[in-house]
């Protein structure tokens, strides 16, 4: 005890780093020791970002950190400081608008958070203080408080469960709000505590707060009568997380260990890193071009201005002001440059960012709304976690898919088993009493059965060796649960319509993995029914309808490294048995070798048929052996540090020298339409790589079943097996194989044309590549650096020339490594990862687009994904239809925006040549401001939300259409140049058309003349109409919204112009546009020139559209389907 105390004193600083000590009920422990209340944060949850006071500065700071906003702020400031042609209002107003809208939105969100925070913080909770119950606000809970929680309440902070109203010291919680798992989880009280918590004197030592929801290591010291304190180990099973709900338990008491922002829930708030789409990169590149144009325009104008001024300096009619005369020449040049920048700055519009954001934000709703993504089974549709990547869905080149749960349903069905080398298959119309039907036995043997004893042993093993809970729908309460190991798993809820046992018709099982349910149900078919676990006793109904009871001693949990799990039970007779089941590769080395060969044959055959195989082994433990194992286990579980490693070591030590009984084969059914989906995706030019932790044979068969490998596919294998052939060292062999495959797949293959039409499907020979985790790590981390890079390249080249690639036996991190490898390879292809389990999270986060399947393996994948869909088959529509459309929409949006601002600003630039480079704006300030906000923004927004240049059905039917937009096809420089040229052409037409008209400014039939503002207004009118009609020409899908917005915008422009020019505005310094528009309309010449110029501008466009159409192989096909009339649509509905 003294040592302990010393430890605490001296090791205090060090200890503070790793663990915290909590005094339960704030009592000094042991009682005689001085109690220093430790400092922890209170239980106030602050999820809000701002307070009333710091909202404005903080929010503005956040907003202006964005480069675009900052740029516009600079422009605005230049306008305020320098004497610029346009008033600060023209750029200030849009900026103000954008900033205000964003601020209001963020403020509102923050207000909601404040409200929610307040609700949480002011929530009344019961705290036990000195034996009395005190109600206080949740925010006031301090670490060490003993908190009482009643049924259906939410835990106010992270608690260690001390006392439960249930007899067995358990309580049930749901963690739906934390990880989305809706099953009830059992948590345990700390063993052997005083019943009256008032007298409990204990400390808890636990690790510092960390965000992992499923990890918790702690130790509780209980002091009784100043003896050496009792020590209890604490694990996640004792920890009740804030945010979880208490269920089926009247009330519990727990001591607060983590509060407020240190709770696991709060620590999990952190968002993910932002992914940026390829389109955004294109936008930035285009922006640079336009910035360059802007700067060069300003430079040209500034230079010319001074050249011009040297000739026409100051005329008598237009003298400089005193201030101008006094200004330093160079400073003046600089401010002139800035003025030109301001004048032309509209070429990079604020509104583009707003429109792009809006388009992405609103566009993503169409994914959520799509009823095709709705899965009736889970009653959920698609989920969009980020709207930044919508268009990236149309650009995918590589798909990395998980196998289990993604390609396959993760809905396991027990197919057959093999006991002692004899195969048992469940026949449908079995005549045999016990439901057994022996089909083809082991090869070369007459049909035979294994001994009955072995059979029963095997079935008992199946019944006992699992972590399944029975869910009885008749009873209100859930009775039992043997384990708390829902480690990153959800409920594999399987409802079984009992075959053999009518009384238990509706029997539900809840388990961490669906394999287990399949096995338990399989055993049930053969007459052994698992009834459940009651206070550490597992009950089995055997074939003779007798109930057998086994005392559950230990569960040696499953983990992906060991790839096996075991249970230790004590039978009625007192025998201690260990049952173990696991993957063949992990069981075979642990069992006596004589049985292995017979069973290996079965396992391998089953694996090639696409079944998941598990081997079952057992072992008798003598009393001494058990005692030792028991002690080791307990010790390991108490360890505060490296508990996992220590436990693993014990597990490995116990699970040796076992006797193999048999193997099971469970079928994992393919997802609906898995093969069709894969075919469509491959048809769309995407390469599908399967990354799985499963073994090669199983994975290979799944690949065949999905059509990823076809009959004529030549498989190139790079696995441990092929590496060990030939009797040379693996390194050498790897080198040889890589070269050989490279020769085959890359060098001998017909040269593949780079570009949109990738012709591997045409190229006669298909290759499939298979690699396993071990070989991959050899490839990736070869001993010498140059080798490693060379291998990597070879590997990539081979893979890129193969139709499909299968990577099996992958650790989660390796999956991410592969994704990264491909992502960073030449050409930076866009990658997509799809998976459903926690093991896929790393690759989902790594890939450009991460897709989570709302499968059975928990919510991690969904939470970390960018998009989540219920089924694999939805991927087809998500990519081929939504992705394609979003890409086309946003690409068009971007190009159009640059175009319309180029032809907006070009006349303004040209006008400088006619006004002595004096920065005179061509358009009125109102037009400058409104052009991007009101007159031309809505049609493009509507277009970018609603356009379907090819209708969805056709997109889904002809997956090759996806290839047309591959490699960012619509944002290539060529197209950008085309749009730029178009913008320049339009700008020239607008300006010079009106210029020639104004060679005689007497344009009215009463001989009166037009001035410069009329000039600008005519140009602007032509501009607005042309730009809008250009979009109308591009629109292939005219819904009423498009009609409304396009014609509405034009009408609004006309209406606004009348209105703006119709009144002497008291707040304006200049009444520039007073009746300019109306006068313009009274001139026939103005009408004629407007019509002429609009038509002339659109003429080449129309011509191109007409000439371009009959190109490409699909054109006719689409044309045949596309012209859908209203009538057709009505018929279809």
């Amino acid at each position, binding site marked *: 005890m003294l040592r302990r105390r010393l430890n605490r004193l001296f090791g205090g600083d060090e200890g503070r780093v790793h663990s915290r000590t909590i005094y339960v009920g704030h009592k000094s422990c042991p009682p005689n020791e001085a109690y220093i209340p430790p400092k922890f944060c209170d239980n106030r949850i602050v999820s809000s970002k701002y307070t009333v006071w710091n909202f404005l500065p903080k929010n503005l700071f956040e907003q202006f950190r964005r480069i675009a906003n900052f740029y516009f702020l600079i422009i605005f400031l230049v306008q305020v400081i320098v004497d610029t042609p346009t008033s600060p209002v023209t750029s200030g107003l849009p900026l103000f608008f954008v900033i205000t809208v964003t601020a209001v939105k963020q403020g509102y969100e923050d207000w909601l958070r404040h409200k929610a925070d307040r609700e949480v913080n002011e929530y009344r909770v019961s705290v036990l203080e000195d034996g009395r119950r005190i109600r206080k606000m949740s925010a006031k809970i301090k670490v060490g408080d003993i908190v009482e929680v009643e049924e259906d309440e939410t835990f106010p902070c992270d608690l260690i469960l001390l006392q439960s109203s249930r007899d067995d010291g358990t309580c049930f919680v749901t963690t739906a709000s934390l990880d989305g798992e809706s099953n009830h989880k059992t948590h345990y009280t700390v063993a052997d505590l005083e019943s009256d918590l008032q007298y409990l004197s204990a400390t808890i030592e636990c690790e510092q707060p960390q965000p992992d929801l499923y990890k918790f290591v702690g130790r509780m010291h209980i002091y009784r009568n100043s003896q050496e304190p009792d020590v209890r180990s604490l694990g996640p099973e004792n920890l009740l997380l804030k945010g979880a709900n208490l269920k089926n338990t009247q009330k519990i008491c727990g001591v607060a260990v983590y509060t407020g922002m240190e709770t696991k829930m709060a620590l999990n708030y952190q968002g993910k890193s932002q992914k940026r789409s390829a389109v955004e990169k294109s936008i930035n590149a285009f922006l640079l071009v336009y910035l360059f144009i802007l700067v060069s325009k300003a430079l040209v104008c500034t230079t010319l201005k001074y050249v011009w001024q040297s000739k026409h300096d100051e005329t008598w009619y237009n003298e400089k002001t005193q201030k101008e005369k006094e200004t330093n020449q160079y400073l003046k040049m600089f401010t002139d440059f800035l003025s030109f920048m301001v004048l032309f700055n509209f070429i990079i519009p604020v509104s583009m960012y707003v429109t792009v954001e809006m388009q992405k934000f609103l566009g993503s*709703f169409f994914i959520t709304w799509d009823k095709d993504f709705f899965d009736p089974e889970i009653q959920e549709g698609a989920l969009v976690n980020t709207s930044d990547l919508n268009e990236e869905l149309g650009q995918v080149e590589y798909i990395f898919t998980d196998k289990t749960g993604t390609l396959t349903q993760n809905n396991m069905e027990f197919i057959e088993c093999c006991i002692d080398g004899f195969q048992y298959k469940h026949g449908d119309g079995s005549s045999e009493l016990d439901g057994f039907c022996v089909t083809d036995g082991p090869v070369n043997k007459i049909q035979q059965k294994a001994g009955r004893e072995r059979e029963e042993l095997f079935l008992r093993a199946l019944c006992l060796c699992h972590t399944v809970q029975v869910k009885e729908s008749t009873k209100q309460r859930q009775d039992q649960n043997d384990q708390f190991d829902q480690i990153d798993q959800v409920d594999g809820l399987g409802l079984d319509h009992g075959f053999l046992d009518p009384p238990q018709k509706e029997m539900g099982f809840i388990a961490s993995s669906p394999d287990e349910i399949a096995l338990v149900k399989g055993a049930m078919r053969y007459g052994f029914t698992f009834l459940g676990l009651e206070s550490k006793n597992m009950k089995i109904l055997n074939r003779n309808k007798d109930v057998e009871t086994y005392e559950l001693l230990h569960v040696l949990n499953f983990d992906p490294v060991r790839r096996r799990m075991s249970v230790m039970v004590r039978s009625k007779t007192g025998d201690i048995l260990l049952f173990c089941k696991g993957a063949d590769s992990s069981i075979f080395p642990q069992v006596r070798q004589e049985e292995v060969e017979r069973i290996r044959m079965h396992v391998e055959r089953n694996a090639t048929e696409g079944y998941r195989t598990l081997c079952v082994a057992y072992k008798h433990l003598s009393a001494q052996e058990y005692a030792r194992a028991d002690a080791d286990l307990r010790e390991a579980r108490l360890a505060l540090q490296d508990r996992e490693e220590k436990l693993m070591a014990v597990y490995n030590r116990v699970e040796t020298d076992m006797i193999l009984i048999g193997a099971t084969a469970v079928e994992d059914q393919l997802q609906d339409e898995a093969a069709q989906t894969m075919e469509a995706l491959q048809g769309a030019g995407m390469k599908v790589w399967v990354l799985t932790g499963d073994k090669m044979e199983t994975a290979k068969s799944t690949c065949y079943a999905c059509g990823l490998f076809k009959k004529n596919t030549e498989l190139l294998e790079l696995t441990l097996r092929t590496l060990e052939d030939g009797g040379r060292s693996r390194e050498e062999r790897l080198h040889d194989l890589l070269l050989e495959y490279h020769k085959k797949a890359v060098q001998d293959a017909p040269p593949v044309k780079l570009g949109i039409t990738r012709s591997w499907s045409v190229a006669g020979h298909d290759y499939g590549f298979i690699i396993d985790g071990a070989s991959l790590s050899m490839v990736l981390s070869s001993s010498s650096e140059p080798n490693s890079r060379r291998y990597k390249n070879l590997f990539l080249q081979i893979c890129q020339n193969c139709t499909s690639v299968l990577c099996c036996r992958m650790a989660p991190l390796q999956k991410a490594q592969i994704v990264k490898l491909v992502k960073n390879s030449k050409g930076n292809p866009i990658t997509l990862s799809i998976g459903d389990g926690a093991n896929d999270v790393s690759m989902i986060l790594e890939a450009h687009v991460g897709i989570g399947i709302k499968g059975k393996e928990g919510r991690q994948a969904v939470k970390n994904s960018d998009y989540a869909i219920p089924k694999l088959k939805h991927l087809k529509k998500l990519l081929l239809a939504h992705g394609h459309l979003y890409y086309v929409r946003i690409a068009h949006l971007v190009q159009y925006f640059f175009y319309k601002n180029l032809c907006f600003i070009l006349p303004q630039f040209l006008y400088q040549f006619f006004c002595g480079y004096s920065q005179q704006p061509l358009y009125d300030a109102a037009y400058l401001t409104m052009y991007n906000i009101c007159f031309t923004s809505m049609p493009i927004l509507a277009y970018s939300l609603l356009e379907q240049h090819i209708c969805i059905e056709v997109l889904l039917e002809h997956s090759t259409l996806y290839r047309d937009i591959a490699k960012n096809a619509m944002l290539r420089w060529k197209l950008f140049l085309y749009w730029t040229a178009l913008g320049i052409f339009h700008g020239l037409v607008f300006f010079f058309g009106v210029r020639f008209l104004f060679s*005689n400014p007497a344009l009215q039939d009463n001989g009166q003349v037009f001035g410069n503002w009329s000039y600008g207004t005519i140009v602007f009118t032509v501009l607005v109409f042309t730009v809008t009609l250009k979009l109308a020409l591009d629109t292939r899908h005219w819904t009423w919204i498009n009609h409304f917005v396009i014609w509405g915008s034009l009408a609004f422009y006309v209406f606004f112009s009348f209105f703006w020019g119709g009144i002497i505005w008291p707040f304006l310094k200049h009444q520039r546009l007073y009746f300019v528009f109306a006068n313009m309309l009274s001139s026939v010449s103005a009408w004629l020139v407007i019509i*002429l110029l609009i038509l002339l501008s659109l003429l080449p466009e129309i011509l191109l559209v007409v000439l371009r159409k009959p190109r490409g192989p699909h054109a006719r096909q689409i044309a045949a389907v596309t012209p859908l009339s209203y009538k057709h649509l009505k018929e279809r509905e």
Partner: protein
Amino acid sequence: MMASSYKDEDGHITVSGSGAAAGGGGGSLRSKKPENTAFKQQRLPAWQPILTAGTVLPAFFIIGLMFIPIGIGLYVTSNNIKEFEVDYTGVEMSSPCFTCSQNFSWNSTKPCTCSVPFHLDQPYESNVFMYYGLSNFYQNHRRYVKSRDDSQLNGNEESLRKPSKECEPYAKSNNKPIAPCGAIANSMFNDSLELIYIDPNGTKVQIPLTATGIAWWTDKHVKFRNPGAENTNLTVVFQGTTRPVNWRRPVFQLDSDPDNNGFINEDFIVWMRTAALPTFRKLYRIIQRRSNVHPTLPRGNYTLEVVYNYPVRSFEGRKRMILSTISWMGGKNPFLGIAYVSVGSVCFLLGVLLLIIHHKYGNRNNAAEISH
């Protein structure tokens, strides 16, 4: 944007449903089946036009057939407009105004006059519009364009006393506010032009010129107002202000007609509407047609009597006097006619071209289908 809403959802769903509902981005956890509405399923009925040679061809032909006649009409109309221009800048030695242009001084009290003879080959039948034209005069220079105070011109008394800063350096003179202030007003065109017809028998007949109706109606009646609404005595109204430095007369002495004096003087209003290009014309006078029998301006010899006040040589400008008739399309400008005819012809030719292409493509299309 999304990151924050993501936070919302996970943060407070436990407290109330509002957390989830507030989360935008479509990222809701509601297990509701998406509504099957046409909009949400992107199935709104839509018109899906496809531009093919077939659909565009008629349009091309129609445009061609419409534009060519319009263009010809415009061209003919423009050609029928009679226009006569005389440059009286006086740059050349031979020019009658050479002396005036050479001896120009702002301070001279005696106006310099010169008369420019010219000959009209054709009689001008309808109303004739008399313009003055200036070249190389940058009325659209930014410093110039903004150098005005519309509020002052609108009759605002306060602005009259305190002209806007924009008017600098023509806002104040001798500590008195300038009315009208600004560079535009200051540089108002102040040559006076008169036309004299020389009868075949040698008598000189002065052509009557109308000085009203040359400015936009709305400018004259709304945008430009004299200060002191009802006070007709402009001298009193403009008390305390001074004339623009380059003016010879104060603003309230621009015309004897009270409806054309002060800020609402039409010559002034016309000048205040800044021109779009450095070479421009402005309406100066209208020569009304008097009788149906005689042409407004018969063919013959005329002299243009110029009171030469306006210096342009300093900036190499030119001054012109233009006589022009007006049609429904305004003044003479062949551009529109030519443009219409050429665009119309291009459309028509393209139509023909497309027809050929369409024909060929159609054939190829058929052939392809047969070969299948």
